[in-house]
């Protein structure tokens, strides 16, 4: 039992002192947000009118509420739940206009706590500035450079990719977010016999994703993808484990599998240490845009900026190589709208 002193144990003492101190109030330990808060004053029936003056956090003035008799020795008042707001509710009590507990100049604050989920939801809401929807688009062009065939013909190795998605921050923990999206990835890659390059990728893929967070800041995103490749209907998947905040400082490890098109694994380090300019650097190993390709390594750097409230635009620059002699560059752009 946390209450350190049992009131019953000292009831006798208070009975003695009550003559000298007509009204005694033991402040409640704490309160739960949104739950009415009962205040009790021990005082004889002859006590002048007892009034509690209370205010919610950041409220400018106090609201008066007269206490009513509960029994011969106790008076009570219940503060409405809508003023019981974290971090605490302020109040003082007077009898006939004379303060008997705390004062207007220095009211007592009873701490108010949110439930764990509510507290987390509040923090998430603050971080996102209460914007629960996101529309995001990314376009990038990735060039691994061109090799030469034995006939001295160029073997192009490049693709472009467009992702567009919509997210809803559900905050029904551990489920944080629902995602729907569309991806287009088309390019050219050397054939297996290295005689020429041919088209690769897909024109359309749709996907559905969930963002799960077992703890605040520990996030696992999963995505199921359906795509129509050059060989027909195929499936894909993507996963990402992340510590930190996607739009701020974070570290993420993930991978993606797109049937026929290829696989990739990445490690990303993001940082939000420059106000207004979230950045990230990602190292990716991939054989996109075709699964028969050799694996290459990419490094790309993203930086974004909020140009309007909730609207971020960004650029991506990078370097890609599939062997030690041939390399190319990555460029891209992103746009994000939160509302």
């Amino acid at each position, binding site marked *: 039992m*946390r*209450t*350190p*002193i049992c009131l019953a*144990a*000292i009831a006798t*003492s*208070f009975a*003695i*002192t009550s003559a*000298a*101190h007509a009204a*005694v*109030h*033991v*402040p409640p*330990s*704490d309160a739960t947000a949104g739950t009415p808060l009962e205040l009790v004053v021990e005082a004889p029936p002859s006590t002048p009118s007892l009034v509690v003056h209370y205010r919610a956090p950041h409220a400018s003035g106090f609201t008066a509420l007269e206490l009513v008799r509960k029994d011969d020795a106790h008076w009570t008042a219940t503060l409405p739940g809508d003023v019981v707001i974290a*971090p605490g509710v302020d109040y003082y009590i007077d009898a006939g206009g004379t303060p*008997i*507990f*705390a004062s207007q100049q*220095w009211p*007592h*604050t009873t*701490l108010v*706590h949110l439930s764990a989920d509510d507290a987390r939801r509040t*923090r998430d809401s603050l971080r996102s500035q209460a914007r629960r929807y996101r529309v995001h688009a990314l376009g990038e062009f990735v060039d691994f450079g061109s090799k030469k065939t034995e006939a001295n013909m160029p073997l192009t190795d490049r693709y472009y990719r467009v992702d567009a998605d919509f997210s809803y921050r559900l905050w029904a923990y551990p489920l944080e977010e629902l995602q729907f999206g569309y991806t287009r990835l088309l390019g050219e890659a050397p054939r297996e016999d290295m005689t020429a390059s041919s088209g690769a990728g897909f024109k359309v893929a749709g996907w559905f994703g969930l963002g799960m967070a077992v*703890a*605040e*800041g520990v996030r696992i995103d999963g995505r199921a993808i359906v795509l129509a490749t050059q060989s027909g209907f195929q499936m894909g998947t993507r996963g990402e484990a992340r*510590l*930190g*905040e996607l739009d*701020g*400082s974070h*570290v993420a*490890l993930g991978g993606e599998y797109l049937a026929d098109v290829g696989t990739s694994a990445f*490690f*990303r*380090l993001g*940082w*939000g*240490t*420059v106000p207004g300019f979230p*950045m990230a*650097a*990602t*190292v*990716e190993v991939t054989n996109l845009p075709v699964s028969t390709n*050799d*694996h290459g*390594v990419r*490094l790309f750097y993203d930086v974004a900026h909020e140009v309007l409230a909730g609207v971020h635009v960004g650029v991506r620059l990078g*370097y890609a*190589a*599939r*062997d*030690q*002699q041939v390399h190319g560059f990555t460029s891209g752009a992103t746009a994000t709208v939160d509302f």
Partner: protein
Amino acid sequence: MHLRFALAIVAAVAMQARADTDAIVHGTVVKVEDHEIYVDLGTSRGIADGAPLRLKRPIHLKHPITRAPISDWIPIGAATITQAGSTLSRAVIGELVDQVQPGDIAEVLVVAEHDASPQPVVASGPPVDPATQDVLRVFAGQANQPIDTRIATWERYLSRHPGSKLAPAITTDLETLRNLRDAMHAPTAAQINESVSTVAHHAPSQASLAAAVPVAFVLAQPEHVASAYLHYRTAGTRTYRRLLLVREHDVYLRGVIPADAVRPPGVEYFVELATPSGRTSIALGSPESPTRVEVAAPPILERFAATPDRSSVHVDARYLDFATFDKRTGNRRDTMTQATIDFVYRLDGRRPGPSFVESLGVGYGIYDGKGGFADHAWTASDPLPTAGFRYGYADIEVGGHLASVHVSAGGQVIAGVGRDGFGMGLEGRVRLGDRDDTNLVLSGRTVDQVGYLSEIKLGVRPLDAVMVGVSVGATDQPARGDTGVILGTELELVSLDRVSITARGSWQGRSTQHGGVGGGAGVGFYW
């Protein structure tokens, strides 16, 4: 004006002391032995066996208003002269001897022939404000009082007048008195546990991180209590901090536990009461079993908060020639070029802090090399081999303090492509000392198609703006050739605003005849 009036009060106290000396002979304790003391008073001063003896401790305080030095005393105890000599006398005082020390005042009552009662002294001076009058009244009432009473009196005053303009000066004097009391006799456990009063209190079950916690207590016997202290600490720390509770409406004690103490896993406190005579008692909890309020640890997300000075990017390039001084005939070229771009996020900031994972990084690099062998001469039929590797990596460093030395361990996972296609690599390292100060790093790295590098590097910071590094390494890079030695030095300017510049020089060789010089440069940006 206040000064004149206060000095008048001081003079009044002094005059009263002089009136008392009419019937009292003053001396000093000159020696303390087992259960007895010697004082420098004897029959030559009218002292006789059996004469009553009072012992006092001289104290030096400051006036609460004028801050002028004041000499006063506090009573220690009383005894009788056991044996009076001509100039020295001996008194057996028993257990009281523990509280007496040489230099204490000894006063022996000599039968007075007149009434030595002091005449009332009326202080004259300009009127002062009520607050100052209150303080002067309390101060005047403390003259010659026991130290516990003095402390309790001031505490009572402060608890009822926390906003007094004189509170800072009184707090200073109070601390002097407390220190004096501790030096004289620390209260025993039995004394502390003696009950003065109880308090009613509902402790909060939890508190928010770094948010002050208001607390209120209701006294059961307020008439027994002069003042009360809240002793609080962050759970897990050894010592308590003390806060004088504000007395309000006679029965309430109120205070606020400061936000800086409200840290995970919780904050603990107990309440100590003092009577008007200075007796103290625990009223709620105890030092061993305090009341506890839980404080939840911040979510992991907070570890990634947008704190400045945690991010950096370094761009480095180095060129090593293993054959600069190889004067043998033939093409003995043996070079390696390495360049990296390295992004690092410091979870502990740029200065060491309480973080297990100290940094995370990601980067990209290239190796390009030619040759790699000590005694090979390349010809048209045996052409100079070339090697290359393009790679990305993820980096982590964890650490902490062992016996006050910072120790960390780090590693890299490397993935890249080279002459033979995709390949992997690993790096491991151990660092002794802070990375921004003197430190020693032992590292090993192996990369597919490139080779290994083992290195010991000592970094020192002889100037605040400069770091100097010296390294010794062994490697078969760039193409898993013959093993060579690299002796490197580097100089890093770190005082530039969010920028550092590095210059490197090295000597490396795979044999006595096959050696050369190298160099490199780097630039770092911090934000």
